[in-house]
């Protein structure tokens, strides 16, 4: 099977990954591993996972998104999910998946602003 090819871009202290295709289960797991490895390599303070192009999010991928956020948090990094479409937000809640503990923002721009705010506050707290 093909290895999933989702570019994970670095911008200043942040990583940005935009999921553009429907992920098979194996690809979704590979994506999770790739994000965590990239956090480790780049020492990124925050990660944006943009899901604007996703028209379906089922419980498997939903759980994986929660896992990525929880695992990144253990590594000291904040994940923000951006761009959930209205239909995706509605089906997620009806499905019973409200993604507790996952930080979200309306779009990439607001996501970056939120990440800046969170990471600056963290830095103040540590000073």
């Amino acid at each position, binding site marked *: 099977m093909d290895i999933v090819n989702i570019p994970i871009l670095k911008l200043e202290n942040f990583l940005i990954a935009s999921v553009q295709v429907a992920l*098979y289960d*194996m690809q979704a797991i590979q994506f999770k591993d790739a994000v965590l490895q990239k956090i480790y390599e780049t020492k990124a303070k925050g990660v944006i996972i943009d899901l604007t192009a996703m028209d*379906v999010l*089922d419980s*498997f991928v939903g759980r994986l998104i929660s896992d990525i956020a929880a695992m990144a948090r253990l590594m000291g990094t904040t994940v923000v999910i951006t761009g959930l479409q209205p239909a995706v937000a509605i089906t997620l809640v009806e*499905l*019973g*998946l409200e993604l507790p503990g996952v930080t979200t923002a309306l779009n990439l721009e607001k996501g970056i602003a939120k990440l800046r705010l969170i990471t600056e506050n963290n830095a103040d707290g540590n000073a």
Partner: protein
Amino acid sequence: MAMPNKVITIQSDLDIVAARMAARDMAKSMGFGAIDQARIATAISELARNIYLYAGEGTVTVSEIQQGLRKGLQVVCEDQGPGIEDISLVMQDGYTTSKGMGMGMPGAKRLMDEFEIESIVGEGTKITCRKWKRP
């Protein structure tokens, strides 16, 4: 008059995506709105994954149905897997035996309008669900 229908064989995780795309395409061509398309596609994703995880293989049949004046989309998921011992248990939110979050079956039921399970332990499971088009 024969109504359109499509059968997808589930044998791998690739087929889960194929099944939900087929259902979504049919829902779209029937004129279901974007939110109902997402509901149908998500429900099929959950049910097809159950086939893959618990039975190994099976089929998903998506068809257009009509009852009087109303039109709907019907999905039948069939496998010859181990069957479900306690149906009321798997319909409980949060109940899971493995890889999911325990939202698959009750979640799929909430997303569709009608939902029926027939299962015989040792023989297999058949789930029939329908979504009706809003007039």
